[in-house]
């Protein structure tokens, strides 16, 4: 999955990644995969809130908000999250 380059969100308090193609994520599946790797994640039905080194929110439409002002940290956390958005090999 490829996202647009990260951009600072409008309120300048976080970085936002927007999918290149419209999508609708299976958040329950993403949540399960995160929890299986020990990530503390809250399932709010229309979004997931994952507690990594900074909080990351994943929306059903694939938008990801990373609560940091550090672009390098945002890129690193985006890479972590993207792993969980893919179906595991052999699934689906």
């Amino acid at each position: 999955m490829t996202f647009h380059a990260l951009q600072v969100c409008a309120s300048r308090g976080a970085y936002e990644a927007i999918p290149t193609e419209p999508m609708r994520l299976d958040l329950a599946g993403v949540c399960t995969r995160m929890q299986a790797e020990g990530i503390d994640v809250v399932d709010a039905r229309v979004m997931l809130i994952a507690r990594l080194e900074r909080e990351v929110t994943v929306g059903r439409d694939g938008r990801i908000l990373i609560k940091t002002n550090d672009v390098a940290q945002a890129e690193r956390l985006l890479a972590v999250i993207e792993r969980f958005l893919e179906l595991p090999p052999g699934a689906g």
Partner: protein
Amino acid sequence: MMMSGGIDSPVSLYYLLRQGHDMLAVHMDNRPFTDDTPLEKITDHMSLLETRFGRKVPLYVLPHGPTQIALMRQTDRHVGCVLCRRFMWRAAERIAERERATFLATGEALGQVASQTLSNMRSATASVRLPIVRPLIGLDKAEIESVAKSIGTYVISTRPGVCCQAVPDKPATRSGLVQILKEEERVDVEAILDDCVRRAVVM
């Protein structure tokens, strides 16, 4: 006084303090749907206004994130902002009653955002009994910002921060009370409020 960390609420508080009212402030802590910045901004707003008027304004901080999660999981997102505000009002009213306050106050100005249409204000505030004071109701954004700049709160309010992520993509701007009440039946209102108020922290 409901304090959000934004531009309007400190201006509203300023007007009420200037009139000589004894005020207490309530902040609905919206983490994890925001970050730490609203609370930091509010403590700075309060400090600035307390210094200006020479009196302490107690600040109650109530957890609102769990309420938002319950609403997201169980209710129609379209009316999420109205439901959210109904819980905020109720929680604030409970604090007000505990402190024997005689009114509730906000920085709302008519028509600025989805939750501030007349229809949505009516649906939101039907959840409480105390009178509601809105010192900014007829001002436009430029007027409010002008006052905020003159009293020194604007620079605090406009620091970077994360906006509320619980706001739906298309929030309802007109809501019927019947529809709102029906949605609200999906959650345990009293249990949510009890938990929220029990975890209030006074700063």
